[in-house]
């Protein structure tokens, strides 16, 4: 299996016809000036901007058919239910799930992971059971498992990462024991941009009869995702990082596993019959959707999926690969700049530090040039510790970014040197 870690980068598709400036015009928030300069938005890993079609879909729901779903026999409720369930089908198609019963609407990737930890994990794991995750996880794929460990006595095993920001080759296989019960792994690292060899790791986990959850929050906006081809058991992602609204996200779970999982939260919509002596739970996916869902959010997410299908995920992946290579070259030319995360397979993220200038100061200085980047630990403190930095500056891409955006970023970082001359 190790040899597969060393495979070469995929060839770059021809993307000369990808018209990023044209797509950019679909995003109203990108058409503004900040501190008198045109906005260069490079904080997409934190949250992406929203295209007009998403904003309109949310607005249309509230203006025309705002109503609760799955309940009313009246006209508006039927419209709302149709739109809400239509969004579920769009998401199913987008990630190639087998059935809409496998698509659970949640608040975001964080809630999706908590759901799996509390429903799947808490009902099964015992003291001494082992959960494997990696050193590059976002806090949202660490803390839910720590909470579960406190509740059950299970323990965490951590796959270390290399200086390039890749999973230590072969380390995962070595961590599997007869007590391993679960593997939770980022598909793409939010702090480093590393694309993990998840197919290989899932195959390895399945050989040990261990189910796998992928945190796909940073993958879905950048790569075509096919959950059946990946073979994962759970896949978690957030709407707001893929050009949809905040407050909505998705947990994909294989139906066979979801069927045998106890409910997580109780309330309306997740039940069939409630009596004080016994309650019968609803079918999938509703069993895991207690309470009135984020109807507008789901409809907005459906619109975001439509939009991404229209632009085309393969085209987005190919374009962003070129853009990332260009940005890497430009930043490497900046004096005293060091990239953090140089994996061979990467998407979307340029994390860096500049000698003698704290990332926080960098963030403020480039902001005055209209450039929005994130500075800090990126909710991945173990990654910062691994690279011995208190924080990094992070520019993260979307398909509406251009080479000019990265030129502006490089110039703005150069400017920081002048401030501290």
């Amino acid at each position, binding site marked *: 299996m190790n040899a597969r870690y060393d495979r070469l980068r995929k060839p770059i598709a021809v993307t000369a016809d990808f018209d990023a400036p044209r797509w950019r015009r679909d995003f109203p928030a990108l058409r503004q000036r900040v501190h008198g300069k045109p906005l260069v938005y490079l904080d997409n890993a934190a949250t992406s901007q929203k295209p007009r079609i998403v904003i309109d879909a949310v607005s249309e729901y509230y203006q025309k058919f705002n109503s609760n779903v799955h309940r009313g026999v009246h006209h508006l409720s039927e419209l709302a239910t149709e739109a809400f369930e239509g969004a579920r089908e769009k998401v199913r198609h987008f990630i190639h799930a087998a059935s809409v019963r496998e698509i659970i609407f949640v608040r975001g990737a964080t809630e999706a992971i908590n759901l799996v930890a509390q429903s799947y994990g808490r009902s099964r794991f015992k003291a001494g059971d082992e959960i494997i995750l990696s050193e590059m996880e976002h806090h949202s794929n660490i803390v839910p498992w720590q909470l579960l460990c406190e509740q059950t006595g299970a323990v965490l095993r951590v796959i270390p990462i290399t200086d390039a920001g890749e999973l230590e080759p072969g380390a995962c296989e070595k961590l599997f024991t007869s007590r391993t019960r679960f593997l939770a792994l980022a598909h793409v690292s939010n702090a480093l941009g590393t694309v993990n060899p998840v197919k290989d790791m899932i195959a390895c986990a399945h050989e040990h009869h261990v189910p796998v959850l992928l945190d796909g929050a940073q993958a879905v906006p950048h790569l075509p995702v096919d959950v059946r081809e990946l073979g994962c058991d759970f896949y978690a992602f957030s709407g707001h990082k893929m050009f949809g609204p905040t407050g909505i996200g998705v947990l994909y779970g294989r139906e066979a596993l979801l069927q045998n999982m106890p409910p997580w939260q109780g309330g309306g919509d997740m039940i069939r019959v409630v009596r004080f002596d016994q309650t019968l739970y609803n079918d999938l996916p509703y069993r895991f959707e207690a309470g009135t869902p984020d109807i507008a959010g789901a409809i907005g997410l459906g619109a975001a999926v439509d939009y991404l299908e229209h632009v085309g995920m393969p085209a987005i992946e190919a374009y962003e690969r070129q853009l990332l290579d260009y940005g890497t070259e430009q930043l490497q030319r900046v004096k005293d700049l060091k990239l953090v995360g140089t994996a061979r397979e990467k998407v979307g993220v340029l994390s860096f530090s500049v000698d003698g200038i704290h*990332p926080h*100061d960098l963030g*403020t200085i480039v902001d005055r040039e209209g450039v929005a980047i994130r500075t*800090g630990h990126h909710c991945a403190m173990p990654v910062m510790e691994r690279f011995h930095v*208190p*924080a990094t500056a992070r520019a993260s891409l979307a398909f509406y970014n251009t080479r000019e955006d990265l030129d502006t970023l490089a110039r703005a970082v150069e400017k920081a040197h002048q401030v*501290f001359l």
Partner: protein
Amino acid sequence: MDLKDLYQDVIVDHNRSPRNFRRIADASRTLEGFNPLCGDKLTLYLKLDGDRISDLSFEGSGCAISVASASLMTERVKGKTVHEAAYLFDSMHDLLTRDNANADLEPLGKLAALSGVRAYPSRVKCASLCWHTLKTALEQPEQQTVSTE
């Protein structure tokens, strides 16, 4: 507002060569201040002679604003009484958080160089971390760490 209002020469200078950047071996109080959001970390050493802060120093790492602010603070507070330090804390709190454009900055001396921070709400904690650490060190000697979050 120009960037130079935030990164004034005094701040750039104190960031490059922080004053009182050392450990005090026989400190009366030692306290860690931590800003988990941006990773700013400092250790404050304080020597009390009765009611007077006879020596004050710090170590740590952080952004230019946090390092310069700590450096300026040690310079200013050294030799002052506990009461005077508390008064300065309140003045700094006002300077960093209140929009009092007409206030008299004269009594603050070099500390007034931090007035530009007010226009950058996300940076106020950087400048105030050392002051909160000092206040806690004086008021709650049993505390081990101070966090902005």
